[in-house]
C-alpha cells in the first residue's frame, strides 16, 4: 500500500478500485446469465446441429455449395499454409477434389489428405421457426389461457381478501387481535404439506380434483403473507385521514375503499404482482390437483411434460422454456421498481 501511494494519488487509487470492482461484478454477471445465453442460442439451432460434432456454439448450418447442378458440403481446407473454405466435390480416401465457392471458374482443386479429418464450414443460420414449432407442439395458447385464468382469478381473490383482513388488523381494536396476528404469522412458516392431504381428500370427495377450483377458491380467504405485507403498509397511513373522513360521516367500508386503498396503491400493486407470479409459477398445486387432466394444465406443468417427451430436442425445449419466461420477464421490466420495493418491505419490516 505504501509504495502504491507514492505513485498514485488517492483519486487514481479510487478510480482503479472502481474499474476493478465493476469489472469483477460484470464477470460474475456474465457467468450468472450464461445459461440464458445458452438457452437463446440453442433455441435457434437446427435439429441436425444439436448432435453434430464440431458444430459451433452459435446457431449455424453447414455451408452447402451448388456446383454444376449438385449440392456439395463445404470444408475448411489448408492449402498453401492458409485455411480456405472449399466445396468437396469428389471424395477419396487419401486424396480428394475441391472447388472454391468464391471462384468456381478456376475449376477442380486437387488435395492430398483424408477428407474425414477436415472440419465442416458453418454459417450463422438462426431457426426462428423453432419457437413456432415449440409453440404449436406444446399447444401454448391453451396452456397460456389456463395459466392466465388461474393467475387472474386467484390474484383477484388474494388481493381483495387480504386487503380487507389487513385493514381489520391495522385499524380495529378487538379482543384477541395480537394472538390472531401471531396465527397469521404462523401460517406463513407452516409447511404446506402438513395440511395438504386432508385438504386434497376433501376436494376429492366433493369432486373438485381435476378442476382449478381447489387452487382458486382458497385464495379468497386471505393468505398470511399478503395480510402481513398489507397490514405493515396500512399501519404507516396516518390515522388523521380516517378520522377526518369519519367526522364527515363516512362509514367503515367507505373509509377502507376511498381513504386506505388509494393511499396503499404501491403495496397493493406489489401484492398483486407477487401473487400473480406465484400463481404463474405454481407447479406443485396444479401438479396434484390437475393430474390426468392435460386440458387444464398451466404452462409449468405443460413444460414439465414437454421435457419428458422431447428429451433429445434441446432446441425445442429451450425455445419452449424461453417462451414461458417471456411474459414474466416483460412484466418485470415494466414494474421492477414496485416489485423490488415490495420485496424489501416484506424482508426488512419484520
Amino acid at each position, binding site marked *: 500500500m505504501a509504495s502504491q501511494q507514492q505513485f498514485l494519488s488517492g483519486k487514481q487509487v479510487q478510480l482503479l*478500485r472502481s474499474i476493478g*470492482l465493476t469489472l*469483477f*461484478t460484470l464477470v*460474475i*454477471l456474465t457467468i450468472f*446469465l450464461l*445459461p440464458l445465453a*445458452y*438457452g437463446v442460442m*440453442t433455441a435457434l439451432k437446427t435439429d441436425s446441429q444439436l448432435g453434430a460434432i464440431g458444430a459451433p*456454439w452459435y446457431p449455424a448450418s453447414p455451408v452447402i455449395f451448388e456446383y454444376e447442378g449438385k449440392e456439395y458440403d463445404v470444408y475448411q481446407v489448408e492449402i498453401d499454409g492458409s485455411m480456405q473454405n472449399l466445396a468437396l466435390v469428389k471424395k477419396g480416401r487419401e486424396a480428394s477434389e475441391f472447388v472454391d465457392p468464391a471462384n468456381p471458374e478456376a475449376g477442380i482443386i486437387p488435395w492430398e489428405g483424408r477428407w474425414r479429418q477436415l472440419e465442416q464450414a458453418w454459417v450463422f443460420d438462426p431457426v426462428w421457426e423453432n419457437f413456432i414449432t415449440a409453440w404449436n407442439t406444446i399447444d401454448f395458447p391453451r396452456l397460456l389461457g389456463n395459466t392466465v385464468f388461474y393467475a387472474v382469478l386467484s390474484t383477484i381473490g388474494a388481493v381483495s381478501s387480504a386487503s380487507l*383482513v389487513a*385493514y*381489520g388488523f391495522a385499524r*380495529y*381494536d*378487538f*379482543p384477541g*387481535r*395480537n394472538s*390472531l396476528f401471531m396465527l397469521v*404469522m404462523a*401460517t406463513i*412458516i*407452516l*409447511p404446506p*404439506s402438513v395440511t*395438504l*392431504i*386432508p*385438504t*386434497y*381428500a*376433501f376436494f376429492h370427495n366433493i369432486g373438485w380434483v381435476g378442476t382449478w377450483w381447489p387452487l382458486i377458491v382458497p385464495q*379468497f380467504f386471505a393468505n398470511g403473507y399478503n395480510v402481513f405485507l398489507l397490514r*405493515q403498509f396500512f*399501519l404507516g397511513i396516518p390515522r388523521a385521514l380516517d378520522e377526518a373522513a369519519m367526522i364527515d360521516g363516512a362509514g*367503515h367500508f367507505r373509509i*377502507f375503499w376511498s381513504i386506505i386503498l388509494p393511499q396503499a396503491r404501491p403495496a397493493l400493486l406489489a401484492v398483486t404482482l407477487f401473487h400473480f407470479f406465484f400463481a*404463474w409459477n405454481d407447479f*406443485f398445486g396444479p401438479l396434484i390437483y390437475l393430474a390426468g387432466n392435460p386440458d387444464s394444465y398451466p404452462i*409449468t406443468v405443460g413444460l*414439465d411434460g414437454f421435457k419428458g417427451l422431447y428429451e433429445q430436442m*434441446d432446441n425445442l*425445449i*429451450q425455445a*419452449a*422454456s*424461453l417462451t*414461458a419466461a417471456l411474459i*414474466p*420477464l416483460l412484466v*418485470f421490466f415494466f414494474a*421492477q421498481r414496485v416489485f*423490488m420495493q415490495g*420485496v424489501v418491505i416484506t*424482508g*426488512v419490516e*419484520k
Partner: protein
Amino acid sequence: MTFFTPSARQSSRRSGRIGREQRRWGYLFLTPWLIGIVLFYLVPFVASFWFSLVDFNLANPEDTHYVGFANWKRALFEDPNVYESFGVTFTFAAISLPLGMGFALMLALLLNSKSVRGKALLRTLFYMPTMIPLVAAVLIWGGVLNEQTGWVNILLENVFGIQALGVNGVRWFASTRLIYFTLTFIGLWGVGNTMLITLAGLQSVPTDLYEASELDGAGFWQQLVHITLPMISPVLFYNLVLGVIGLMQYFLIPWVLNGGSGFPDGRTNFAGVYFFLQSFKFFNMGYGSTIAWLIFLVALLLTLVLFGSARYWVYYAGGEN
C-alpha cells in the same frame, strides 16, 4: 420485530358503544381469514394427524382402518427411505444454504459499494432470472450443464483444459459428489429476493460506524466481520429461517430433473420428494400424512433451535425484542 401496533397495549378493552363497534367491524373485516384459517389450516392440520393414525389409501378408501401408531413406527423404525430422505435434505442444506446466502451477501455488498458503477442496471439484471418460471429455469440449466453438449463443459474442456466431456468428464447430474452443487447453482437463479433484502439491510447500517472504524485503520475484512455482519444479522437470520423452512419442502427442482427417481444413487430423494411420492403417486395418504407431520416437526424443531440461538448471534440495534 414490529408485530404489535402501539395502541394494542393501551386498550383492547374499551367499553361502550365505540368498543362494541370496534369489535364488530374488526371481526367483520377479518371474516375471510377467520373462515380460511379454520377451513384450510386448523381443520386440515388436526385431520392430518388423524390421517397418520389410519391406513387410508385413496385408491381403496373403503378399506381404511385405525392402525394406531403403525405409520409412525414404519416411518421412524422400518422405512429406511425416511431417514435417507431427511439425511439427504440436511446434507443439501449444509451445502446450499451457506453458498446461497454467501452469494446473495456478495452481490449485495457489490451493489452497495461506492466503487461499483451502474448499480441500478446490475441490480435489475441480477434479479431478472428470479422471474423466470422455475420449471423453465431447470430446463435451461439442464441444457447448459449437459455433460456432452452444454456450454459449461465445452468451456471447461476447450478454454480451461479440464477434461470435462465424456464418461470420465464432469457429470453435473450423475455424480454423487457434484449433484448438490448443481442443484445449488440452479437455485442461485432465485437469489433475487435474498439479495434485495440483504441489500436493504446493508443500506440501513449507519455510515458513521464505517467512518469511525476507518479512522482506526480497519480494512474491508475487519469492517465486514466487526460491523457489517453483526449489523445485518437480523436480515441474515430472516433469510436463514426462510431458507431452512423452504428446504424442508424442497421438491420442484429435483422433480423436474428426474421425476422423483432419486438419481444419482438416491441423492435427490429429498423429504419433500418422498412425501409427494407416497401421497400423490402411491396415494398412501395415511403414511403420507405421517411424513408430512415429520416434516412439520423437524421444521418446527429447527425453527425453535434457530430462534433459541438468535440471542447469541443476532444483534438488534433497537435492543432486545
